[in-house]
Every structure is written in structure tokens, then in C-alpha cells.
């Protein structure tokens, strides 16, 4: 299958449910091979570097506690961040939802007369679908992270939050670059492809005076912003332009500068399997003579405060976007990221996306997991993802319970009938009798039922069912008692 033959929909309000969204992926062996290869490489590197860290569990404990403390006192720390950032020459804006964030950013760009903007990879901007909005407002966006360029030029969507183009292989990258950059003689050597990007972007970095970034962390104590990266495109964007706009979720706040001693140690190891990522940048407001002289931070809520209000779900907001959970997830390994219908795929996406949508959309995602717990085990800030998945599943069910249409839902009716039967012994015995008699006709010689009729076929589509034995335990027990008398 050629690359880009289908365009994934990463808008949770429009994306198909997970079970149907995975089908194009499961039928695409090239895509599955690309995903599995990338995951295997990261996992091997991460495993080695986590193993050498004798205090890994203590770092996780500290990381979880710092993030939980920041969230529990978020009001205080957000105001402190605003005060310190403003004092250092930054301008802080607050956006209640995606639409407001987009409007603030467009207005800032208009004030700069910006027709072009360079961007550091930010999943938050993808969350609010900033690029299409800016294009429609007449602002051309240039992604500068290599993976984001591959996706932007290939008109594709991210499938991972750290290596967003891991589903694309080198020959596909070569095809995209040679087509869009007009480089006919390009080979598929990753070094040559990377060099093509260095040349392509160098002039853009020097010429475009406005940049947009995300933030890995905001530091309340100092009003600083922290960006963690590998390529140096981030340093270019946050050093060369005249104006810098940072878009950050309100949950990104850390209490103090020193907290980075924990977060930076766990982030790089978890995300890319490195002791430290090549470049980390910390900046505070505006520094005369060094870097952008106008600096704006847009603090985005967009559903986060409602997640904060729920006791079990609050831990979702501890996330530092390292992607260790998706790399460890047996479901993600098979499906890749697009099936999740959101810029946040994998286990963290399965809990974050439905909550950001306040469970109006993406309701199939809490079920996109085997609950094996590998995500919890690797999470550097100890988010108990299976616990949140179960909580969300129960909320999805409860939502359905209130709907009038439930009386036509076979699952709902089936479980109501089952609960009636299980609560009365005589009904249970009668049902057992009829079940034994009825299922006998479906049982094959090997004692197994290979296919059930009508709705039961869904169960036997992927597994066999053992036929009911001719005698129940109750029956056997009663008969044994009679014999011994």
C-alpha cells in the first residue's frame, strides 16, 4: 500500500470508533512493520538505561509526588507562574478552550503582521488544530521538527507523541522529500534525508521572525519555560525570531526550578532511551539582547480543569508526554497511533482523549486496552492508567444507562436478564437446563462449540466455546449425596 493512501482523522469529534479505525492498520503490513520496528528500538534503549539507574523507583516516586503536589495546588502555582513570567517581561494569556487559544494566537500574529510562522513540535497545538486554522487565516506554518516535516509535507498525521512519524519508513520519507522539495537525486539514506532538512530549514530559521512552541514544563517559582528536544530546531525557533508564542496546557506547571532534577532524569530515559536529550532550553520572559524580545504564553484549559475535579482521573494530568506507555503497550504495538483518532494515542490517549472530550466523544477508547498494566509499570510519574481506564469504562456504561435507547441495546438487555437470573436459584437452574439442552445441538464431537448463531456469533468469531457438560456440579453433588445415603 502506498503511503498516504488514506488520511487519518485525528479529530475525536469525527474519528470512527477504535474497533473500526484499527481495520485499515491491521490490513497494512508495511505500517505495522514500521511501527513494530520503531517500538522495539526505543524499548531496547529505554530498558538498558532504566536498568543502569539504581534509584529509578525513587525517581518515579518523587516525579509522581511533585506532579501530584503541583496539580493539587494548581491555582496557586499558575498565579505564581503568571506573576513571575510577567515580571520578567512575558505576557500571559488564558484560553478556556481551543477556539479561544486559536483566536489569541491569530490576533498576536496579526499584530506582528506575520504571514509565516516557524513551529517547534507541540502536541498541544495539534490538540487545538492550530495549523489548519492558521492556514485559513492566511498564515503559513512551517513545522521544524524532522518528524513533523515528514508529516506536514506528506499530508499525514502524527501517530506517536515523541516520534510522530514512526509509521513512515525511509523510502516513504525519500519519496515525500524528493516530491515536495524538488530533490530528484535524493537517496533513502537517513543521513542524506536529514541533511536535506537542515538545508531546507536553515533559511526559514533566519528569515521568519515569529515562532510558536509548546512547553515541556512551566516553572512557577521563576516564571520560566522549559523545552526539551533533540534536533536543535527548538533552540533555533526560540533564539532567532523576534516574537515567541508558547502554548501550554495549564497542567504543565512545576513548583520549583529544582524539580527539573527529577523530571529531566526520568523524561529522557522514558522518551527516547537516552541519559539526557541533546538540548534542553530554559528561558524566562525576555532577556535584552538574547532571543525574542516579545514573548507570550497562552495557558490552555480546554477540559483540563474538569479532569482535575475528578479524584481518580486527576492523575491523568501528571503526564509529562514521554510516550513510554505507548511504547510498552501491546495494543499500540499492533495498531499504531492513528486508530486512536486523536493526537494523543496509546494508553495515555485512551484516558486523556475521552476526558478532554468530556466523554461526549472517543467513548470506545477506554476499551482499547487489555488492562495488562505495562503502561503503569513504565510510567515515570506513576499514572495508574488501568485504574483510570476502568473508571472511565464505568462512566461510559453509566452514561448509557440513562439513555432511552438502552432498551434496544442487546448488551444492556442481556446483562439485565443475566442479573435477574443470577439472583434467583430456581431461575438459574431452569436457565442451566435449557442452556444444556439448547447448546447440545451446537456442540461438535470434540466437545467445543465453534460457532454460535446470531449475536452470539460475535463471541465465537475469534474463539471457541467449551460445550456445557452433561451434568452440573450441583447435579453431581446431589447425586453423590443420594448414593452415599
Amino acid at each position: 500500500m502506498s503511503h498516504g493512501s488514506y488520511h487519518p482523522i485525528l479529530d475525536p469529534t469525527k474519528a470512527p470508533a477504535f474497533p473500526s479505525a484499527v481495520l485499515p492498520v491491521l490490513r497494512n503490513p508495511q505500517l505495522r512493520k514500521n511501527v513494530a520496528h520503531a517500538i522495539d528500538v526505543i524499548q531496547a534503549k529505554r530498558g538498558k538505561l532504566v536498568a543502569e539507574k539504581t534509584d529509578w523507583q525513587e525517581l518515579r516516586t518523587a516525579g509522581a509526588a511533585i506532579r501530584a503536589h503541583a496539580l493539587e495546588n494548581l491555582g496557586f502555582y499558575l498565579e505564581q507562574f503568571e506573576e513571575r513570567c510577567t515580571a520578567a517581561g512575558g505576557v500571559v494569556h488564558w484560553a478556556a478552550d481551543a477556539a479561544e487559544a486559536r483566536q489569541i494566537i491569530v490576533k498576536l500574529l496579526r499584530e506582528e503582521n506575520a504571514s509565516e510562522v516557524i513551529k517547534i513540535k507541540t502536541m498541544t497545538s495539534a490538540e487545538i488544530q492550530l495549523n489548519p486554522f492558521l492556514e485559513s487565516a492566511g498564515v503559513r506554518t512551517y513545522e521544524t521538527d524532522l518528524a513533523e516535516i515528514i508529516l506536514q509535507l506528506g499530508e499525514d498525521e502524527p501517530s506517536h507523541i515523541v516520534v510522530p512519524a514512526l509509521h513512515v519508513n525511509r523510502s516513504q520519507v525519500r519519496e515525500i522529500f524528493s516530491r515536495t522539495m524538488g530533490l530528484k537525486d535524493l537517496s533513502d539514506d537517513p543521513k542524506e534525508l536529514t541533511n536535506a532538512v537542515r538545508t531546507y530549514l536553515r533559511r526559514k530559521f533566519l528569515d521568519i521572525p515569529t515562532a510558536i512552541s509548546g512547553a515541556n514544563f512551566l516553572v512557577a517559582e521563576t516564571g520560566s519555560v522549559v523545552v526539551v528536544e533533540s534536533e536543535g530546531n527548538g533552540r533555533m525557533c526560540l533564539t532567532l525570531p523576534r516574537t515567541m508564542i508558547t502554548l501550554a496546557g495549564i497542567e504543565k506547571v512545576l513548583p520549583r526550578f529544582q524539580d527539573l532534577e527529577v523530571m529531566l532524569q526520568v523524561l529522557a530515559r522514558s522518551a527516547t532511551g537516552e541519559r539526557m536529550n541533546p538540548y534542553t532550553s530554559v528561558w524566562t520572559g525576555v532577556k535584552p539582547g538574547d532571543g525574542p524580545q516579545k514573548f507570550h504564553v497562552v495557558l490552555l484549559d480546554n477540559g483540563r480543569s474538569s479532569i482535575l475535579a475528578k479524584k481518580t482521573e486527576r492523575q491523568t494530568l501528571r503526564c509529562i508526554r514521554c510516550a513510554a506507555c505507548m511504547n510498552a503497550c501491546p495494543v499500540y504495538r499492533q495498531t499504531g497511533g492513528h486508530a486512536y483518532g486523536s493526537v494523543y494515542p496509546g494508553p495515555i490517549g485512551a484516558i486523556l482523549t475521552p476526558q478532554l472530550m468530556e466523554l461526549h466523544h472517543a467513548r470506545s477508547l477506554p476499551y482499547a486496552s487489555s488492562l495488562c498494566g505495562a503502561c503503569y509499570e513504565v510510567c515515570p510519574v506513576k499514572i495508574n492508567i488501568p485504574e483510570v481506564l476502568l473508571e472511565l469504562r464505568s462512566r461510559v456504561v453509566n452514561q448509557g444507562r440513562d439513555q432511552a435507547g438502552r432498551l434496544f441495546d442487546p448488551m444492556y438487555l442481556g446483562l439485565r436478564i443475566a442479573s435477574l437470573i443470577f439472583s434467583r436459584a430456581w431461575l438459574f437452574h431452569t436457565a442451566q437446563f435449557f442452556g444444556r439442552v439448547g447448546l447440545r445441538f451446537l456442540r461438535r464431537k470434540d466437545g467445543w462449540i465453534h460457532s454460535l448463531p446470531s449475536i452470539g456469533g460475535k463471541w465465537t468469531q475469534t474463539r471457541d466455546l467449551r460445550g456445557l457438560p452433561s451434568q452440573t456440579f450441583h447435579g453431581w453433588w446431589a447425586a453423590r449425596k443420594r448414593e452415599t445415603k
Partner: protein
Amino acid sequence: MNVHVQPRPRSRQMILERVRAATHSVTKGAGELEDAYAALPRGYVRSGGLSGEARIALMIERLREYGAEVIECGPEQVQAAIAAQLASSGKHTFVVPAGLSAAWLTPGFEWKIDRDLIASEIEQAEGVVTAAFCGVADSGTIVLHHSAAEARRVLTLLPDWHLCVLRARQVVETLPEYFARCEQAPGLATYISGPSATADIEMTRIKGVHGPRLLHVVMVRDE
């Protein structure tokens, strides 16, 4: 035209109210907050156990793993060590921050001293020479706080070749030890761990995407 967007106090107030309502049962009062923060578990390794010699050896090993070239010298030979690196670089034009020791500017090369150089001038330089604030041996990280001798951020970004002078006294073993050395949080900081790199294409690690592709370190043994 307005320089700033009109502030929208309503969204600000609304978000803060929602956040406070969401956390009112757990949020601490001002005094308690300090105590709660102080009580956070920090059982991880704060300071390393390596001897001075082993610490420097680890720093050098990590830097070399990243592909950086490291040469050691005594406190008296810094000038000579820099000159040797410059000579073998095959480059001629260098930028330097204004706060760098004038003695380090080896004659025979073209030196552009950064007094508000514009980006295109910096880009034309083939290399840059700076000091550093700190080195973290555990991860081979060079820390710049962008003081007068450590250069503005753009200087260590555009030229393709970076020579950094690091003193053994500045090298700590663990990341928390660096943070302990910051008496005050820096307004600007850059942590460099090896040359810029990407693994975005099939997880194949490629060095030198946008930043300097070549990193040289002069390790001054002043301990």
C-alpha cells in the same frame, strides 16, 4: 495598533475558579504549602559517590560516547590547548562572547567578538569558543547559563563547530548536584548532551541536525 492583545480577565478568572473548585479539598493554605512541598519524597540519589578522578573520567567517557573530542590540559596550558584545537579544526573564522579571556584568542585566526553581532554574521563564522557553567558527568551534559563568557544562546547554535572550555572544578557527578550549585535559578540556561541528533527516520540516530555538528571540549584539570 495595540502592542498587546486585550487581556481577557473573564477567561483567566473562570479558569482559576474552576481549578480552585476542582482542588478545594486538597489545596493547601500558604503556610501549609511550604511544608507540603518540603515533605515531598526525595529518596533518589542526590550526590554521587565517585572520587574526583573517576568523576572527570566519567565525564570524558560520556562526552566521547557522544562523539565529542575531548582533550585534557593543566590550568597553565589552556591557551596552548585551545590553539591546538583551533589549528587542527581546519577553520579560520570564529565568534566569541565578549566576556571570554582575551588570552584565549589565538593570533592567526579571524576573531569576531560578539558585540551585538547579527544572526547572519554569526552564521558565517565557522566556529565558536565559549566557557561553561557546569558539567554533569552522569549524562555528559554541558550546562550553559549564558553569562558573558558563555555567550548568548545564538552563538553556540549557528556555527557548526563548538569548542567549550570546561574546568574540572565545574564538573559534578549527578544532575541534582548541578541544581544544588545554582544559588539562584538562571534566567536562561541550555543543557547540551552531545551534538544535536534525530532518530525520526526508522529510529536511526543521525548526528547534527540543526545545532553545531562538532563539539570539542578542553577539560582543564584544575582540581
